[in-house]
């Protein structure tokens, strides 16, 4: 048993700091290895900080709202045996036993508090995957030879979800999906299509846009998720050398057939007032929207509207899609799940017939072009189960 200062571990590849959102364990409470101590918000999402060994929380050194740098102190704890991400400051009584004059030469408390990482049986590939994904190996159950943790074991608990939205949409359009994925311990990266959201570029072809997106993919194992045109991009990215995603999940994907609602594209491309935008959005069957929500969305919509229209014209003309995603989907080196609303007015759900036989198809009755918002839990489960399938493949 020793007093240890816990430090903020690396929870994501690009993470340099995190904001504390909530403490789960209170001072004086005992906890077990694997228990969530607190939740923090990184540059990507809210993540849990699990305990790496049994212990008792003595003092919280940070409060909700505090921003903590990587490796910064977050708590003082008392813990049995060996700490993992902890830096050790032995209590004075322990310190005395470290002196050369000690009468207990066999005791080496300093060694007992050394990180155990080296003692965890994990394949080199698993260690590399954990390093890339910012995942701790402790707490993982190894499925390999002699209980060795494999890269698959690591990826099972990791894998960054990349969300690709559709035309005239942006990262806000995913609503609560990222939070739902975070609950499943999946980290999300939301990419904006060229000219959409915060992206300031212009792409005049599908291929050019796909190239741009490919450059922005995070490293490490990925779950690729796309909606509508974003689904076609997700399928393309899945086929690239070196991407090799764990799963591909497509909501109302474009590129399965030829027809597309020309009215929707025209109305969206011309919408420069709140009224016009409200009218255009009806095609999506997104349910009623408040005027406040519309007026929030309007400035995002009209910003770089020309670039959005350029991309729209590149992928569809006169109600005919100019892209075919079926080849990319068939070539994707991972399980594919597709969700379609049978009341979709923008794309025809019956084009799922063009999907490869291996794809899992989920049809949502009475849902329009945003089936993942109609069934958000199913959508999140699909992404997660998609990578479960990746393990069994």
């Amino acid at each position: 048993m020793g007093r240890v200062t816990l430090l903020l571990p690396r929870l994501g590849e690009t993470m340099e700091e995190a904001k504390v959102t909530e403490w789960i364990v209170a001072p004086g409470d005992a906890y077990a290895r694997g228990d969530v101590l607190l939740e923090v918000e990184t540059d990507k999402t809210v993540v849990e900080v699990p305990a790496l060994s049994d212990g008792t929380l003595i003092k919280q050194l940070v409060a909700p709202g505090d921003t903590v740098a990587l490796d910064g102190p977050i708590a003082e704890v008392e813990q049995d045996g060996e700490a993992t991400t902890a830096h050790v400051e032995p209590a004075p009584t322990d310190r005395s036993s470290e002196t050369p004059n000690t009468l207990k030469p066999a005791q080496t408390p300093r060694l007992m508090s050394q990180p155990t990482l080296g003692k965890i049986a994990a394949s080199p590939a698993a260690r590399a995957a954990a390093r890339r994904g910012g995942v701790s190996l402790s707490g993982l159950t190894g499925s390999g030879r002699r209980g060795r943790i494999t890269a698959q074991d690591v990826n099972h608990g990791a894998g960054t979800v990349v969300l690709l939205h559709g035309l005239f949409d942006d990262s806000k359009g995913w609503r609560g999906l990222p939070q739902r994925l975070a609950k499943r311990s999946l980290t999300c990266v939301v990419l904006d299509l060229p000219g959409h959201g915060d992206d300031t570029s212009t792409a005049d072809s599908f291929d050019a846009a796909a190239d741009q997106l490919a450059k922005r993919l995070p490293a490490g194992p990925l779950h690729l998720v796309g909606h509508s045109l974003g689904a076609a991009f997700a399928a393309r990215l899945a086929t690239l050398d070196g991407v090799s995603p764990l799963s591909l999940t497509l909501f109302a994907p474009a590129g399965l057939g030829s027809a597309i609602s020309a009215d929707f594209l025209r109305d969206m491309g011309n919408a420069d007032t709140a009224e016009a935008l409200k009218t255009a959005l009806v095609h999506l069957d997104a349910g009623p929207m408040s005027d406040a929500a519309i007026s929030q969305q309007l400035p995002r919509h009209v910003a770089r509207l020309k670039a959005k229209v350029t991309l729209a014209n590149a992928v569809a003309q006169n109600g005919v899609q100019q892209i075919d995603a079926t080849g990319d989907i068939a070539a994707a080196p991972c399980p594919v799940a597709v969700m379609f609303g049978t009341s979709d007015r923008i794309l025809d759900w019956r084009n799922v017939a063009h999907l490869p036989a291996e794809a899992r198809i989920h049809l949502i009755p009475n849902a329009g072009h945003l089936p993942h918002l109609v069934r958000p839990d199913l959508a999140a489960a699909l992404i997660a189960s998609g990578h479960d399938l990746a393990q069994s493949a």
Partner: protein
Amino acid sequence: MTKTTYRDALRKALLDAMAEDENVILMGEEVGLYGGAYGVTKGLLDHFGANRVIDTPISEPGIVGAAIGAAMTGLRPVAEIMYVDFAGMVMDQLANQAAKSRYMFGGQIGVPMVLRTQGGTGRSAAAQHSQSLEAWMMHTPGLRLAMPATVSDAYHLLRDAMRQPDPVVFIEHKGLYTLKGEISPDPDAPWGQPAIRRDGRDLTIATYSRMLHETLTAAAALAPEVEVEVIDLRCLNPLDDTVLMESVRRTGRCLIVTEAVTTGSVASEIAARVTEQCFDWLEEPPLRLGGEDIPIPVSPALERASIPDAMLIEEVARWLVTREAPSWAA
């Protein structure tokens, strides 16, 4: 395309090269009148005469030394040492002379010669006529080393060897001379580079020479349960390991199958390289499956048991990938 044998492909390579370039000469024990101990040079004496197909006394160091001098002065000799085991006789000329001349003399004097020989088990030729000594050649900078496994490589690798500006040790396998196959119009891979003989995602097996065939048999039996990528290394010195490392990074597992004694072997070198270069991709340690660390016994039963075969390769590969242990593991 018509099928031919490994032996005839080698002869065709010599014949074509000698017809193209009058500086190409053959020298060795029994290469002329006898036609080669394994029949590779049959008929070449009649074609090219005794000045170009030179029967030598039983003087292995002298044969290699003379070939070195001929190479230094403008000819392209192909010397034959009947068994690679006789490398024990010729290692001074090979390792101290041929391999080092270009370097010692500051790049002035290359030794463009080929030393043809053959090795391996399968004929109950016993301890002094059955070895696989490629590691000796791999351990010597300045030598090049090629070991053809297929009929097409027998032709193309030998042609390529005869074009090299540096000494090439060319080790044939006594068990492959009757192998039938086609000579493809182009080499399966550029000189110096491995060829992928089978694609697979679960395990990379690196091998060469006769063990390629045992490995391919094992890989066929393992599919589709275990998909093995089979890499034929072809040229072992200098060893271009790019293709192999790319493969191991895809599969995360590597087994090296050779016929040679395992300790201090080509397999050991490859295992070390895989460990260094693919560490972050490995799910299992690179594994060597080679000959037992014993001299080759003469009894066919003992000889067979001393080196891997398709069954053993299959068992070890399955064990490595699926953790299904073979019966002998208990």
